[in-house]
């Protein structure tokens, strides 16, 4: 199974169309392996982005450099996946 240790999900708040376009630019950078959980839409509507650990620094620098606000929605994706897996395994064991 693929693991997502260190992957974070960022909640990005693009304040205007220009900032939305900046985030759209990120989408084109395939080497970052970004996964939009909620894609760029109207300014003000949240954009949720899963960022692999190796790309985290670059993405955060990019957002901060363009004054685009973000929060960390999920600190480590693998932690949630492990909890989900444990729950399913416990059920099967029972």
């Amino acid at each position: 199974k693929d693991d997502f240790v260190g992957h974070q999900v960022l909640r990005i708040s693009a304040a205007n169309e220009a900032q939305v376009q900046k985030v759209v630019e990120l989408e084109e950078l395939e080497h970052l392996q970004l996964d939009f959980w909620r894609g760029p839409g109207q300014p003000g509507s949240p954009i949720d982005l899963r960022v692999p650990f190796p790309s985290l620094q670059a993405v955060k620098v990019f957002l901060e450099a363009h004054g685009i606000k973000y929060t960390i929605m999920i600190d480590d994706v693998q932690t949630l996946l492990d909890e989900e897996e444990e729950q399913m395994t416990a059920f099967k064991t029972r």
Partner: protein
Amino acid sequence: AASTDTFNYNVYHNLDEIYGFMDMLVAEHPGLVSKLEIGKTYEARPIYVLKFSTGGNNRPAIWIDTGIHSREWVTQASGIWFAKKITQDYGNDPGLTAILDSMDIFLEIVTNPDGFVFTHKKNRLWRKTRSLTAGSSCVGVDPNRNWDAGFGKTGASSNPCTETYHGKFANSESEVKSIVDFVKSHGNFKAYISIHSYSQLLLYPYGYTKDPAADDAELEGLAKSAVTALASLYGTKYKYGSIFKAIYVASGSSIDWAYNQGIKYSFTFELRDTGRYGFLLPASQIVPTAQETWLGLQTIMNYTRTHLY
């Protein structure tokens, strides 16, 4: 599980367990539930639809699908709960009984089986189908960009390596074409509801154009009623609107195709949550999510029954 009464609705299940549940439900309610195979996936898995019918011939019908995006696990889990709920409520709940006394309900619980198996075995966050694209090392097509409605326009990607890749041509995915052929051959669907997660939205056409649908005002009014009913249980707040207005331009979507087929009451639900767990919603929230969504579904189904066209 020995029966659908002892089946555990509070945990996530894999494909075999869900298909096993479907067989149990059919065996327990042979006069109400039947299982149809409408096609095969790219990897040759059967695609099953549950039909809930109390008789008649080609009655006006309601389509509900869950799990077209495989990682949205709370939707398939909710679909299981809906199936059980229908069998429990028929004969007991006047609203649902009235619907099934004059209409049929078709429910496809695992609409992207290949992708769903892949989320269990390899990549929990897989969204697309598992078809191979000639000339590309990337796998899969976004099954909700592959429908013949604004296909290939803005709001989908032509790059096979992206999550919103629309595929080489409309209905290229057998998971999509199976539904298209089934709905067209049935010819009497009056409502089409596709269930996704997440972000707590109730959406209606269009996504591929900002032009409002001909029935925009009616769809908006019905969406408002549905989200009000949904919120009445746990206070879960939904927004509603056309795909284009509420979120972004999205082409090739199932409900745009359904609406253009003349199925007026076409909606997409985006279930919980708004941004704490995303696709990784804890299993403890499956049943509450299904319960509240059912109230929204019932609003749409009741309205459809009393506003046949």
